[in-house]
């Protein structure tokens, strides 16, 4: 069994409530931080832990925190990004629903470290029942002296508020989230200035993902050095992976970042293999925006080594033969799935979610959707495949926020690795509307090029 740091107590009945959480060591990390450590010392532990942002970008959390500006007399804000909207991702939902106090405790320690007295949890609007759970947990924490004025007699004050979004993927982008929190359309801002300098109401602001902030609790409990011993290399600690698609056991798993992709998919501890005895065709391991990989490149890298469930392992080979850990939204496709159709649903998603500020994204996402629709419906031309490639290249890197890239990458990767299937759709339009291309050669062993003789 892999070691757990976030879900180690998730199985305890009633852990959602303060009394049970507290009786099982809850708020121990907050007590340690507030009563015996200076904010700089907490920051040092987080830096030592090597914790990286769990929302998708993987930016070192300690470094992000150290960027926050501290002008005299200006409030600072911590914003918890609970706008979990990346297709395939549903890990934060589980954490907030079942162990809300873990998040509250993480927010308390993080706010203390950053010197914030107000903290906002921005949660996606569709998770409409979760704010009640969080607000109950906040009320319990307040009643027991962990929130409000003069927390546990330390002189530190903190209020946590829950704010619901209203159905806009783009608000997961930190500056769009801040705009939304200010009561505006979720249009991302041009950076710089970064939120650490000019964020919510133009004040210094840190925006972190739910899982990132919750991870601060075990870091304080066991110490940054000990946390860094979990995982491999720069992928320290544990990661929540939400697994879905054609697998036997979909759900949210906490993994130590030292297992292989093969173990994650096939072992009974995690996904339990492909459902209905089918074979693995492809996988999108980090949420819909990361590159899709065919089975043969997913399980082994282009060098023939076992691919690991780490930031570096999944990225091995760059975008040519690798992908990204992203948000941990792990989508598995079996041999019966159609790559064109799957790519079309994501293109439609990004078109729907584009905020419309930047022309390449606003126009390009809709254009890609229409071209993919034609191919899927048997009206595609060979030149459409090159056209798709051309459009995605012109979106990538040409937009204010990363939504453009997120829309471009799935299309690019699908063509890069599954071009045969797109061509088959174009050449056999009749057949393509009746059946799928199947597994084809996508799981065949790769030829490993011998190193060139020097």
């Amino acid at each position: 069994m892999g070691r757990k740091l976030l879900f180690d107590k998730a199985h305890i009945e009633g852990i959602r409530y303060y009394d049970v959480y507290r009786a099982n060591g809850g708020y121990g990390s907050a007590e340690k931080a507030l009563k015996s450590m200076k904010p700089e010392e907490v920051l040092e532990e987080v830096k030592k832990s090597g914790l990286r942002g769990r929302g998708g970008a993987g930016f070192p959390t300690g470094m992000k925190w150290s960027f926050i500006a501290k002008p005299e007399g200006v409030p600072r804000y911590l914003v918890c990004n609970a706008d979990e909207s990346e297709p395939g991702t549903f890990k934060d939902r589980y954490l907030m629903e079942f162990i809300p106090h873990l998040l509250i405790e993480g927010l308390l320690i993080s706010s203390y470290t950053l010197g914030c007295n107000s903290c906002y949890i921005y949660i996606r609007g569709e998770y409409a029942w979760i704010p009640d759970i969080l607000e109950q947990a906040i009320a319990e924490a307040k009643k027991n002296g962990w929130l409000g004025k003069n927390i546990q007699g330390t002189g530190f004050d903190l209020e946590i508020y829950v704010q619901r979004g209203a159905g806009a993927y783009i608000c997961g982008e930190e500056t769009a989230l801040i705009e939304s929190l200010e009561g505006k359309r979720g249009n991302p801002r041009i950076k710089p200035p970064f939120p650490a300098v000019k964020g919510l109401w133009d004040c210094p602001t840190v925006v972190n993902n739910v899982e990132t902030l919750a991870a601060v609790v075990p870091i304080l409990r066991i110490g940054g050095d000990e946390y860094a011993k979990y995982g491999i290399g720069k992928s320290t600690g544990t990661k929540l992976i939400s697994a879905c698609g054609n697998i036997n056991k979909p759900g949210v798993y906490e993994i130590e970042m030292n297992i292989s992709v093969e173990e994650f998919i096939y072992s009974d501890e995690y996904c339990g293999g492909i459902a209905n005895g089918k074979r693995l065709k492809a996988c999108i391991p980090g949420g819909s925006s990361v590159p899709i990989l065919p089975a043969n490149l997913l399980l082994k890298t282009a060098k023939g080594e076992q691919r690991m469930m780490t930031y570096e392992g999944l990225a091995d080979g760059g975008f040519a033969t690798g992908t990204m850990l992203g948000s941990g939204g792990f989508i598995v496709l079996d041999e019966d799935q159609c790559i064109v159709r799957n790519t079309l649903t994501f293109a439609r998603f990004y078109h729907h979610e584009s905020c419309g500020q930047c022309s390449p994204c606003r126009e390009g996402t809709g254009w890609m959707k229409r071209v993919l629709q034609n191919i899927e419906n048997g009206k595609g031309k060979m030149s459409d495949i090159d056209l798709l490639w051309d459009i995605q290249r012109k979106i990538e890197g040409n937009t204010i926020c990363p939504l453009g890239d997120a829309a471009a990458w799935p299309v690019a990767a699908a063509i890069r690795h599954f071009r045969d299937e797109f061509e088959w759709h174009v050449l056999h339009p009749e057949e393509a509307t009746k059946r799928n291309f199947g597994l084809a050669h996508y799981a065949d062993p790769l030829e490993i090029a011998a190193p060139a003789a020097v």
Partner: protein
Amino acid sequence: MFSEEKLNKVKEIIARYPAGKQKSALIPLLHLAQEEFGGWLSAETMDYVASLLQIKPIEVYEVATFYSMFNLKPVGKYVFEVCQTGPCMLLGSDNIIDYIKKKLDIGVGETTKDGLFTLKTAECLGACGYAPMMQLGKHFREHLTPEKVDAIIEECRVKAN
């Protein structure tokens, strides 16, 4: 107009933000208004919210039109929002949408003649491991099958009576 109880809730929401930043309460207030006033936001409702926050009506319109959860025209008493993005599609959401269309004899975006049901498609709602799924009011209905859809429709009809 909100009841006194709801107006107290409005005050409580506005108090979450620093003085002068009451516009931040806009999205929470639009949610509240949509729940209170028949499941959608009319121009009158939006103007009312603008007056509560002392902002211009256009500031409300531009926000209400941006976010997909706000309905700008009347909807049925029960709105089925069926997710159709990748992970749900892999597990048969297209069949669920077709089934609901036939069963209720409406298309996507339409409402049944009795005003009870509206069918909408939605993009990823964050329940990928429990696909196919839909949002119904405040909650998710997951692992949908035609039988489950039948039961949900029946449940709504009973509740409506």
